Every structure is written in structure tokens, then in C-alpha cells.
């Protein structure tokens, strides 16, 4: 189900609008606001910087947004620029992003370049007066994050970071359910992301190694933390409404000893001031555990990535199984029903309940580009809507800031093998402890 359909149904349920209080960033992209914005026949004119794999994925999504038009493309790697131009032949092409930012026909800019370039490009884009969307962690260093945050506070332009979980109906509904007390008090969080792949891309000639495999080198990437953990840590800060202040952990290159500089294995504990923890693990040489974000409550567990929850105590009775036993043993007795539908079993002792009435499978987390239906289209669409209305989505930048700071604190803790405490200099008023 699309986010729009989800919001539409929410609008029709009594108290539906109140539910939006738990996810205030969706208030700027309701169907009503869209019809207002689109009534004038306005079109968001989008320029894209970085037309690599994720950039091209966005192009496919943007082409589905009726009120958006891609007017400009920029990449300094001709192969990728050409590939993107083939998808949008009418768009202007640039090799220097500054020229694209000068283009008065561009209303909004989507930046899909390596992490090391995010801060500069975002700052330049905002000061060029463009609405800006950047993929996905904020920046490579905490200072850069702070600079972006400060610029955002000064700017009247809309700024988004692509943390698509905030726009995925399955997550949105789960946030609301947790907020309404479904699983009781949240007592801890466990997140992990496991893959079994080298995280490399083929390189046509050796001098392109650092450019194409930018994820593996510290000058351009903060590794698993910003590329994977950022999404999951953000879920934890949203669910608790709080920011952890301490982190400890270990990171190493365990298997892919191929000259890369970033860890291929990380294991960390984040601690909130009230004593709750987030346990975080990521490893890319074993994928058995897949990707999960488990919110542990006193009454139950929400597994956000699968869109299912479990109760500590569940009253599942096994109607037909009992009958079968009776028939085999020649006994007649009343069979208890489960009453209102029970949900299919995935675990031996806990019955999963689907967040979206019906769980339609889940994202395995194996794709490096993006899965379909994961909120990526919805967030791009919301950004295009902001390009028309000028309305900033609440909390999106703040949450991206918190998540990125947590990732970078984690890297620092692993690099220096010590407990890292959130420095005062990087605290922002949004953070609650």
C-alpha cells in the first residue's frame, strides 16, 4: 500500500489525524495539501546531482511522480551521466554541480553522491536557494553535520534526508502502535543488518577504484555505520523520542581483507541516560540473521523491518490440532476456538501479528540500491511536494542529524576502543535525553 493511500484511510478514521502526532513529518504531505499544491498546475523542477546507482533509482521513482519533472542532471563520471541522460533525454546535463545550482529553472536538488560530498553540496545548494534532498546520512564528520544543521536553521528552503523508513507505511503504523502502548514500555532495542557480499562494485580501470568503491574508503565513507546503521538507529530515536548519550563497541575487518579501510564487522551498544540500550550489529560475511529492528517492550516485541509484532503472553489455542488428537484417541469434547483470527506462525512459541493487517513479505536488506515499496518513492514524492509548497517536513532533518551523529560516535568508539559520550557541542535543542 502506498503512503498516500495509507494517509487517505487515516484521514477517514476518527482520531486518525491525532495519530499523525506520532509522525509529524507526514503532516506536510497529506493528500489534501497535495491537491492544494497541484491545483495551480505547478510542477516541481528537479535537478539531480550524482547519477550513480541510487541516483538512477530515484530517476525511475521521479518519473512516477505526476507533479515532478527532472530538468537537470549532474555527474562528473561520464558513464553514469550518460546512463541517466538515456532515461531523461530532455534534461540538461552538467559535470560541475555548481553550474547546476546556478540554473534558475531548478527548484529542488536531489543529491545522491558519496557521503564525503554531502555536506559541501548541501550547503551550496541551500545557499543557492534550492530546496534540497540528500541521500542519506548527513555528512562524514560531526562538524560537517553541525554546519549543515546550522545552515538548515538559517534557511527558508525545505531540506530532506532520505531516511525512507519515516515514509514507509509499515513503519509509520508501527510507530503509532508503539506510541499507543501496544507493546508496553519500551525496555530495549536490538538492531542488526547482516549480508554476505563484499560491498564492492566492478571497476573498469584501477585508477577508478576509490571513486567507484567510495564506500570502502574513509576519505569518502563512514562504512557500515552511515550506510546501514543510520536507518536503524533512527528508528530507535523515533520510537523512544530520546537520544542515547553513550556508545561502546568493537569494529574490525574480519573477512574482506582486500585493502578496504572501513570495518566489515561492527558490534556496539548505545546507552540512553535512563539506562536503556540499543544493541547494534552488522556483518557482511554472513547473512543468516538478515535485517531486523526489534523494539523490546514489557508486553511484546515489535519487529519493524518485518512488520510483525509478538506478545510475551499470547492466548493461541490450537483448535484443529486438538480435534485431531481427539479423533486419533477416540474422545469427544469441546474444542476451544481462537476466537478472532490468529496469525500465521513464524516462531515456535510466539505468534506474529501483522502490523498492516496482512504482512506481505519484508525487505531482506540485501539490496545495495533500494527495495521497492520501502518508502523511497514516497519520500521523494513528499520532497517534490515541498518544492511546490515550500513547507518543511517536521523532524526529518533533526532525526537524520541525530542518527548520523550516533553513527559517527560509534565509529569513534570503535576506532579508539573506548566509551564515547555525546559532546555538548553537538547537542541540539531537539534532542531529549
Amino acid at each position, binding site marked *: 500500500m502506498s503512503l498516500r493511500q495509507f494517509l487517505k484511510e487515516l484521514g477517514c478514521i*476518527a482520531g486518525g489525524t491525532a495519530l499523525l502526532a506520532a509522525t509529524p513529518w507526514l503532516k506536510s504531505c497529506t493528500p489534501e495539501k497535495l491537491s492544494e499544491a497541484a491545483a495551480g498546475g505547478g510542477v516541481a523542477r528537479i535537478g539531480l546531482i550524482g547519477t550513480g546507482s541510487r541516483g538512477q533509482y530515484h530517476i525511475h521513482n521521479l518519473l512516477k511522480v505526476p507533479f515532478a519533472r527532472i530538468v537537470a542532471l549532474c555527474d562528473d563520471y561520464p558513464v553514469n551521466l550518460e546512463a541517466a541522460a538515456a532515461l531523461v533525454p530532455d534534461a540538461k546535463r552538467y559535470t560541475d554541480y555548481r553550474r547546476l545550482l546556478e540554473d534558475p529553472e531548478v527548484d529542488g536538488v536531489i543529491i545522491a553522491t558519496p557521503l564525503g560530498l554531502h555536506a559541501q553540496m548541501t550547503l551550496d545548494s541551500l545557499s543557492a536557494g534550492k530546496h534540497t534532498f540528500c541521500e542519506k546520512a548527513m555528512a562524514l564528520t560531526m562538524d560537517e553535520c553541525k554546519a549543515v544543521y546550522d545552515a538548515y536553521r538559517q534557511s527558508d528552503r525545505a531540506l530532506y534526508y532520505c531516511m525512507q523508513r519515516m515514509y514507509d507505511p509499515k513503519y509509520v503504523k508501527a510507530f503509532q502502535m508503539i506510541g499507543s502502548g501496544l507493546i508496553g514500555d519500551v525496555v530495549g532495542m536490538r538492531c542488526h543488518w547482516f549480508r554476505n557480499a563484499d560491498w564492492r562494485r566492478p571497476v573498469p580501470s584501477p585508477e577508478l577504484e576509490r571513486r567507484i568503491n567510495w564506500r570502502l574508503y574513509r576519505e569518502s565513507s563512514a562504512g557500515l555505520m552511515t550506510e546501514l546503521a543510520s536507518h536503524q538507529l533512527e528508528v530507535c530515536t523515533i520510537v523512544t523520542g530520546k537520544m542515547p548519550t553513550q556508545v561502546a563497541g568493537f569494529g574490525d575487518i574480519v573477512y574482506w581483507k582486500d585493502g578496504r579501510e572501513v570495518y566489515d564487522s561492527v558490534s556496539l551498544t548505545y546507552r540512553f541516560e535512563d539506562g536503556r540500550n540499543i544493541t547494534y550489529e552488522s556483518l557482511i560475511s554472513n547473512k543468516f540473521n538478515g535485517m531486523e529492528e526489534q523494539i523490546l517492550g514489557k508486553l511484546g516485541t515489535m519487529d519493524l523491518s518485518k512488520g510483525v509484532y509478538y506478545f510475551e503472553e499470547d492466548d493461541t489455542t490450537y483448535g484443529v490440532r486438538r480435534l485431531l488428537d481427539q479423533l486419533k484417541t477416540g474422545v469427544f469434547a469441546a474444542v476451544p476456538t481462537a476466537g478472532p483470527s490468529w496469525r500465521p506462525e513464524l516462531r515456535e512459541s510466539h505468534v506474529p501479528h501483522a502490523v498492516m493487517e496482512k504482512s506481505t513479505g519484508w525487505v531482506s536488506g540485501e539490496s545495495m540500491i533500494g527495495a521497492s515499496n520501502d518508502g523511497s518513492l514516497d519520500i521523494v514524492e513528499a520532497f517534490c511536494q515541498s518544492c511546490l509548497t515550500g513547507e518543511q517536513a517536521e523532524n526529518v532533518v533533526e532525526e537524520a542529524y541525530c542518527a548520523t551523529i550516533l553513527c559517527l560516535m560509534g565509529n569513534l568508539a570503535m576506532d579508539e576502543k573506548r566509551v564515547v559520550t555525546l559532546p555538548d557541542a553537538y547537542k541540539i535543542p531537539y534532542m531529549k535525553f
Partner: protein
Amino acid sequence: MSGSPSHAFYPDRALFHGVVPHVMGTKLEALLLGAPERESLSLWERWCAEAQRLDAMLDRFDASSEVSRLNAASDSGEILPSRELLAMIRVCEDFRVRTRGLFDITRGTCGEGLQIGAGGSVSLNGGSLDFGGFAKGYFLQECKRMLAEAGIGTAYVDFGGSSILALGHHPFGESWRIRVTHPFSGRVLQDVDLVDQSLSTSGNRPSYRDHIVDPRTGRTVSALRIVTVLTADPLEAEILSTAAMIAEGEELAFLKKNFELSEINRFDV
């Protein structure tokens, strides 16, 4: 472990047992008695295929289903459903009228329902279709018909624990006896004896609440309540159990009067 469909046959009792752990959002489980293995198996396989076919047609969370395609076009005026779906929509509309709007498959129109045009086209007026309260009953109706065709007179079909079709009787008793307990208090509410009948249960459970929406107001039913409906037609049982959950004041008496062949029981704590 429990992921894929499975079945077993116990020759000494001519007892066939089949399970599909996950179809139409829940579990389908059945016991067929008295028929040779081959016949039971062939019927069971047809049921599995049919449940999957209906799922692929009616699942509004599956973007490729017919219902999703209609829902996606809901803003663009009239849409043309397949004959089968149109027939289902007509049945649902009929029940909507007969239940005075308590049962309504349209969502997002705040109780306005839908319009069926002369040529079999449908206008959803921006709303969407949700067959969640219909599909299981419809499927059990088909099961009942196919059992009759196959000449199997003793069977117990459990769809998600909440929709049960019981034909004939327990081999060691005179009925299929089902115990309904209150999901909140654990108290035994009733023992229901089924012979050639269907039972549909609807209600809130500690672990699954606020899932039934009053189509007229958009409010969820939050009462600590359970409803059982006992009747010959599995679809009617399914639909009335939802309607009776929602019914307020005089409406429950109205339902009981208007559907006098059905036994509607409602328990509140």
C-alpha cells in the same frame, strides 16, 4: 517448519488433515472424514488453489491484485470489475443495505458506499474496496459447495480460528462442539454444537484490538466484546459477526430480527 502447506492421511479412520499456514492473511486447516485418500487430497488441492486465487484477486495489500488495481483507479470515475468481482460487490452491497450500513466493504468514503452503474461499472468515489470481512466466508461457501459435489458429508474446516465450517458431526459425538471463551476474562461463554453449520467469531482480543472500524463513523470498536454467529451459510455468518460487533443500541435487535435464521450472540464484559 510451519511455512509450507502440508497434509496427512490416517487410513484407519479415513481421516484427512490439511494445513496451509499462511493464506489470506491467516491459517487454513481442515479435517475431511470418510472419503478415500485420493478424493480428499484432490479436493484439498483444489481448495488450496482456490484460496490462492481468491487471495491474488482480493488482497488489497498486493499491488497486482484486481482489487488493488481498482482501488488505484478509484479517483478516475467509473471502473469496470471482472464479472466475478462485480458479483461479489453486488452481494456485499446487498448485505450493506440489509445491515443498514453496518457491513460495508468500502473504505475511505466515510460510509458513503459505492455506486454500481447500469453496464456493470462501479464508482468508488475516491474510496477503496476492502474484502477483509468477506473473503473467508466466501471461500468457506465454496468449500461447502465442493464438499457436497464430492459427496463428503463429514468435515471440519477452520479458517483462522474465527471462521469454521462444520459438516456432519464428530465421529465420537453428535455434533462438532466448540467452546467459546471470553478473550479478556478467559471465562467460558458458551459451548456451541454445530451440525452442518458455520460459526464465525469476531471480537477484540488483548493481543489484537481496535481492528474493526464502524464504516459510518470511522471509529474503531474498542469494546471488550466478542460476537459469535451460528448459521447455515458461512458467508452470512462472516458478515453478521462483523456487523454485530459494530451494532449499537437498537441495531443489534434489528440484526437479530432481520436475520432470524442466524443465531447471533454477543458478549460484553
